[in-house]
């Protein structure tokens, strides 16, 4: 490949470094001569839209499936909130159903909605377009990945209908209680949950293989790693984390399935129930916790890193300013990713481990705040003196920054053993993780959907509905979770089905009712958002090409919206990073990535 390039004798002018501009090649560089990827060209409806190998369609399939199961998760949370706010008025939820709702809500939202949406949905749609590839490197494997995900989701839904219902062991599925009688769903529900998770991991590994290798090997000419949009950096690092972390979940699932079905004792200690000794002996429940959180903590960043990346791009485009400290942003993403593997035991402070062990994990946890804070400063500095357009994506991005800072700071408190121990089992923790890994990434998901919807459909979402959606979601989320911090402070325990008249609850009754009402309103607004998505598909306002005047490649495909093969006859050649907005010396307001320096001779290079 290298020889081919030297044969072309591309003329490079002597670098004119004194002016500080991108001086070299005077002529445009020819597009890649490397043989194009062999693409599968769909012929029938079935291969085009159902068993499809085009990453764009697979991305949409992933996103729709994730949204559908996410709606079930949302409705489950309504049931829980009604029970907590108005236990007498709405008594349709028994204790068993309550725990099943908690479990399924948690698992669905973290894994089947957020992970699948960010990596499967946005990853599939954006990676090939943004790095300038025609498709993923293994389109067939990519298709199988989606179908595995769908089967995993169907198995999960099936657990609602088996005898005993879905598992109610909490989303962490801690043994021994998860598979012992007395826990709802300990008959079939838990088995289906474990099988579904294992299928998800296998399916994800197939997809992850594609995302990583496409980003590493299949970029277009000139797209160096340090010229990639931060969205891609975020998705890339998150996928690497997922490939290394999901095996831990897989291992834990397999061993627990065997404990349940074959009566092995991987995680099961000696147990007496109803005065009788069970056959289990010697297993370690703590081992499961270690395995689970070795997956579980990176999982937080698997959700957060793509959000970090996407929000950086949204802020830059909608504030018409380059990302402040691009290199530092990349470093921060990589460092956060690496650190996320050595903090897992901060979820286990109350498991009775050695205090020095806790001390180590508290330290690493606090260190992770440094790169995270750098990212927040850089977002704020990107906004500083930017030409901020208060479009809906920008509103959601601003909402994200505030919410993320909020949830992050409570995280600093909980990262310390001595503060975590009393707060660990209260609503403070619930408020913390919903803020930092529920609301904050969802803000980015919404912003990203408003941003890229025109690219996918060629139409804008309805702006009025969008504004309503943003304000209700933003204000509503704070109405739900701010009071929840306070409930935690006064000692209201989480995971309880009913509070009765315990002394610390009596002052919290009104707050709980308020939270429930807010949650219902916010939840309803999400259905409004779905209505907006489906109606705008055919009657939204037509969008012109590149409506946000962005620089990255996905907006500059020959067909708009992009079609099969993405880039028509020739792949684009990249000459710059995607953040050339308001470049000094240039008469253009923005310079897309594929514009050669010879076309914008006066533009000065900006230090990143």
């Amino acid at each position: 490949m290298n020889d081919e390039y030297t044969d072309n004798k591309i003329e490079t002018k002597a670098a004119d470094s004194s002016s500080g501009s991108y001086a070299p090649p005077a002529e445009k560089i020819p597009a890649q001569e490397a043989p194009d990827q062999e693409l599968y060209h769909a012929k029938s409806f079935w291969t085009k839209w159902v068993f499809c190998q085009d990453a764009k369609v697979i991305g949409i399939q992933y996103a729709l499936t994730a949204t559908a199961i996410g709606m079930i998760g949302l409705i489950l949370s309504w049931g829980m909130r009604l029970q907590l706010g108005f236990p007498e008025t709405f008594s349709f939820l028994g204790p068993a159903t309550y725990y099943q709702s908690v479990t399924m809500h948690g698992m669905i939202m973290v894994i089947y909605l957020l992970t699948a949406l960010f990596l499967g949905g946005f990853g599939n749609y954006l990676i090939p377009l943004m790095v300038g590839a025609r498709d993923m490197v293994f389109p067939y494997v990519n298709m199988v990945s989606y179908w595995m995900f769908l089967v995993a989701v169907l198995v999960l839904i099936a657990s609602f209908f088996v005898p005993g219902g879905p598992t109610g062991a909490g989303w962490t599925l801690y043994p021994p209680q998860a598979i012992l009688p007395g826990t709802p769903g300990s008959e079939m529900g838990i088995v289906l949950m474990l099988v579904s998770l294992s299928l998800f991991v296998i399916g994800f590994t197939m997809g992850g293989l594609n995302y990583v290798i496409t980003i590493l090997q299949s970029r277009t000419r000139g797209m160096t790693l340090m010229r990639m949009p931060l969205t891609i950096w975020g998705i890339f690092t998150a996928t690497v984390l997922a490939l290394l972390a999901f095996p831990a979940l897989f291992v834990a699932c397999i061993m627990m399935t065997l404990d349940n079905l074959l009566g092995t004792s991987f995680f099961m200690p000696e147990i007496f129930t109803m005065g009788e000794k069970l056959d289990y002996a010697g297993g370690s429940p703590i081992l499961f916790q270690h395995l689970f959180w070795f997956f579980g903590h990176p999982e937080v960043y698997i959700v957060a890193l793509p959000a970090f990346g996407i929000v950086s791009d949204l802020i830059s485009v909608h504030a018409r300013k380059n990302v402040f400290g691009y290199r530092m942003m990349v470093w921060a993403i990589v460092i956060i990713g690496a650190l996320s593997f050595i903090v897992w035991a901060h979820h286990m402070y109350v498991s009775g481990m050695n205090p020095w062990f806790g001390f180590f994990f508290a330290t690493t946890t606090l260190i992770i705040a440094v790169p995270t804070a750098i990212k927040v400063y850089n977002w704020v500095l990107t906004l500083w003196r930017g030409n901020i357009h208060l479009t809906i994506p920008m509103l959601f991005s601003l909402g994200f920054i505030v919410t993320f800072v909020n949830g992050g700071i409570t995280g600093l408190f909980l990262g310390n053993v001595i503060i975590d121990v009393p707060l660990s089992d209260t609503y403070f923790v619930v408020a913390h993780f919903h803020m930092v890994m529920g609301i904050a990434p969802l803000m980015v998901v919404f912003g990203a959907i408003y941003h890229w919807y025109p690219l996918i459909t060629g139409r804008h979402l309805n702006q009025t509905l969008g504004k309503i959606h943003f304000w209700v979601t933003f204000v509503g989320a704070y109405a739900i979770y701010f009071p929840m911090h306070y409930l935690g402070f006064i000692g209201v325990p989480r995971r309880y089905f009913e509070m009765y008249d315990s002394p610390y609850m009596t002052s919290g009754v009104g707050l709980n009712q308020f939270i429930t009402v807010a949650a219902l309103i916010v939840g309803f607004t999400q259905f409004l958002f779905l209505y907006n998505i489906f109606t705008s598909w055919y009657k939204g306002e037509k969008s012109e090409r590149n409506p946000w005047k962005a620089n990255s490649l996905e907006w500059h495909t020959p067909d708009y919206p992009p079609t099969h093969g993405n880039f028509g006859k020739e792949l684009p050649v990249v000459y710059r990073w995607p953040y050339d907005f308001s470049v000094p010396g240039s008469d253009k307001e923005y310079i897309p990535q594929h514009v050669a320096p010879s076309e914008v001779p006066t533009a000065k290079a900006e230090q990143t």
Partner: protein
Amino acid sequence: MSKKELNIFKLLSQKPWEASQAAIDNQHDGKTLDLSKAKLGVRTIMVVSTVIFSLFVVSYSDRMLVHDWKSLSEPWLLWINTAILIFTSFVFHKAKIYSDKNEFEKAKNTLLLVGFLSFAFITGQLLVWQHFISIGQYASTNPANAFFYLLTALHSLHLLGGLFFWGRATTKLFTDNFNVTKTKQAIELCAIYWHFLLIVWFILFGLMIAS
């Protein structure tokens, strides 16, 4: 553009805004590593499998310290299976050498031998299972047994997955008009995977003997 970013620190400290770096970057062909995508794919799979088996090894080491651990006595059949697996790897290496030399007729025969040996290994493992079941050593009898069944099953499943790709490569050799480069690569990658599984088996078997 020949330089590939092997050093992540070097990569992250690039200064893309400098004219000299921009000149280099514009010529970049968009590949990070000098590897084919299939090779990188197999390597990624091997990394993920390594993580899975490492976690099992950690769990095994953690569990075997508990007093109720009664280690199995490895039957002689397990040593024969190990020998078969070593021989399989050796034969696969031969097959790779033949295909590198374009001697596809010989490669075809050695590949068939590989398939036979691999299935023999799996059958051998099943016989060991049968032996243990016949003497009343079930998975639930002792944690050592549970790990034995689990690890041998997972290892054999990995081998079955490899055999799927071995089948695709071998059937190609039976057609008249196959893509030589691609088939060679497929044979090479399968061989690497087989060596990988041999190393995994050494570690697992060593752990079982040591405990």
